[in-house]
């Protein structure tokens, strides 16, 4: 089901809406947000210079640092009285980034998420269990409102107490699960330990996963645990832009449809800041063109993807962004080689003797980077033989060498020793000191 007619407009119609809304937004922030006015003046650009969509490129970027510098409300385009909700990012380093919503912003957000839920196969009949952490994080409430708006019955179970989650899932007949991919796998793992087979004893047939990368290997793992008929789609967003609802995968599984009447995507070369032609891979930059409280312009997401403008088989005409490989700031540089944790994950999930949980540890000895990967033994059948254990290690090492061009140390461990996550998984420990 396609939720809104805006998802099937012609390219010309979409661009007309985008230009109109972009001009309105640029005018407004120039008037109302001194920080933007100063930045625009420094770049020598005025609102009236934005005559066509390409002129967007003349505007300066906004980064997370700008948000920190203006903490908490410095980039807001409405007075505080107009806000009806305030969220903040987790902000592991320094001040969190604060985002606000007017009543209208919440309505738009809800609409965007309803569209994404429909893309993932959801209907008004779902019993939707939201296993994202509620609180300052935008994920849980975003999906909550969007699915509720659609007519689904919401089970706001949040994260934690996985056994109780499973009880609700079973007794309420949950059909739709919202979680990070890693927590969805964890729930299935706990179910199995309790003697519940997620494939037959539960009715969960739709998973809307987000807030973490969904690699192909991870999707396969989801199907292995939850059943091949489960519809597993990922969706994309970040609190700075709105929360979830910026884009989502449809059932064609060929990239995530961007809600283009609300967001303009661009791909840039992260080093030069130059806009790259459609189809090329680079850093995603998003401009919010229909937000009242926090209309970020050319926000650098640090996510790496490419854009596809060809209409999709699902009937939607909106631009799609390819599923993410990783974030520019997740990328590790090990002995001079660029490594995305997702590449390591792909390799590990393809090896059947080990489980889906892992930890990547990077250290430096002298001047040499060391890459170590902790994995869990899945089957006990090789427990008696050093040769069999060494053979697994060698197999993992060899495959990693092919993919990364690097040697890694593999650390085999007992089942259930590596940390499990209920929210965003933190699987990389970079223990190198700067320099």
């Amino acid at each position, binding site marked *: 089901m396609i939720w809104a007619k805006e998802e099937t407009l012609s390219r010309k119609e979409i661009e007309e809406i985008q230009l109109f809304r972009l001009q309105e937004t640029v005018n407004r922030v120039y008037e109302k947000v001194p920080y933007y006015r100063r930045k625009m003046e420094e770049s020598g650009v005025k609102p009236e210079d934005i005559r066509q969509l390409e002129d967007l490129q003349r505007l300066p970027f906004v980064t997370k640092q700008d948000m920190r510098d203006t903490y908490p409300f410095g980039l807001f385009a409405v007075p505080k009285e107009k806000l009806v909700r305030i969220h903040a990012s987790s902000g592991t380093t320094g001040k969190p980034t604060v985002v606000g919503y007017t009543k209208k912003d919440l309505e738009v957000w809800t609409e965007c998420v309803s569209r994404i839920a429909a893309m993932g196969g959801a209907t008004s009949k779902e019993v939707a269990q939201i296993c994202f952490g509620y609180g300052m994080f935008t994920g849980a409430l975003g999906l909550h409102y969007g699915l509720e708006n659609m007519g689904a019955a919401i089970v706001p179970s949040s994260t934690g107490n996985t056994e109780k989650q499973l009880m609700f899932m079973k007794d309420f007949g949950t059909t739709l699960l919202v979680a990070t991919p890693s927590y969805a796998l964890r729930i299935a793992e706990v179910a199995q330990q309790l003697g519940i087979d997620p494939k037959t004893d539960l009715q969960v047939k739709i998973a809307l996963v987000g807030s973490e990368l969904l690699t192909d290997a991870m999707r396969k793992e989801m199907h292995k645990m939850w059943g091949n008929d489960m519809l597993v789609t990922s969706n994309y967003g970040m609190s700075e832009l709105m929360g979830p609802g910026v884009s989502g995968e449809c059932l064609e599984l060929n990239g995530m449809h961007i809600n283009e009447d609300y967001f303009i995507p661009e791909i840039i070369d992260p080093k030069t800041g130059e806009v790259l032609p459609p189809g090329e891979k680079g850093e995603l930059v998003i401009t919010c063109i229909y937000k009242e409280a926090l209309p970020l312009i050319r926000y650098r997401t640090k996510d790496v993807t490419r854009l596809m403008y060809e209409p999709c088989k699902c009937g939607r005409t909106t631009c799609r962004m390819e599923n993410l490989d990783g974030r520019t700031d997740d990328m590790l540089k090990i002995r001079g080689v660029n490594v995305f944790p997702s590449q390591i994950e792909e390799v590990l999930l393809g090896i059947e003797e080990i489980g889906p949980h892992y930890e990547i540890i990077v250290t430096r000895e002298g001047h040499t980077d060391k890459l170590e990967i902790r994995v869990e033994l899945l089957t*006990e059948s090789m427990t008696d033989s050093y040769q069999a254990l060494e053979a697994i290690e060698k197999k993992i090492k060899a495959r990693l060498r092919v993919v990364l061009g690097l040697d890694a140390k593999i650390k085999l461990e007992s089942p259930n*020793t590596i940390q499990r996550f209920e929210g965003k998984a933190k699987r990389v420990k970079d223990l190198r000191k700067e320099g």
Partner: protein
Amino acid sequence: MFMDQVSVFIENRKGRLDDVLETLKREDINIQSLSLADTSEYGVLRLIVSDPQKAQDALKASGFSAMLTKVLAITLTHRAGMLQKIIGILGKENINIEYMYSISSGTEDMPLVLKTSDIERTLEIVREQGAEIYTG
């Protein structure tokens, strides 16, 4: 004729061996013999215990990777050259000895636990040579 040996994978980390022993103690399982080779990252702990199935179940429930392996235990009565003879035959037949270690039997005999690449054939050879099979 064969004995079920419990093999447990343990990381080379403080307290892991203790966790195994604690699990067995809780289940009131008696250890007759134990072998642990020395490697830098992990080890395989091999145990001959009073109730192997119960031990495996308890260890798995505690989160260990544990399996049962069929091994052969023979008692070498004090006849010089018996072990050498058996090993010689195994070698001729291309049967590989994967590992061996001894069990304390509480008597003067010292039963040896043997794991080979062909445990059935090994049993036949041992019998032909007149060595005594130890079954605990």
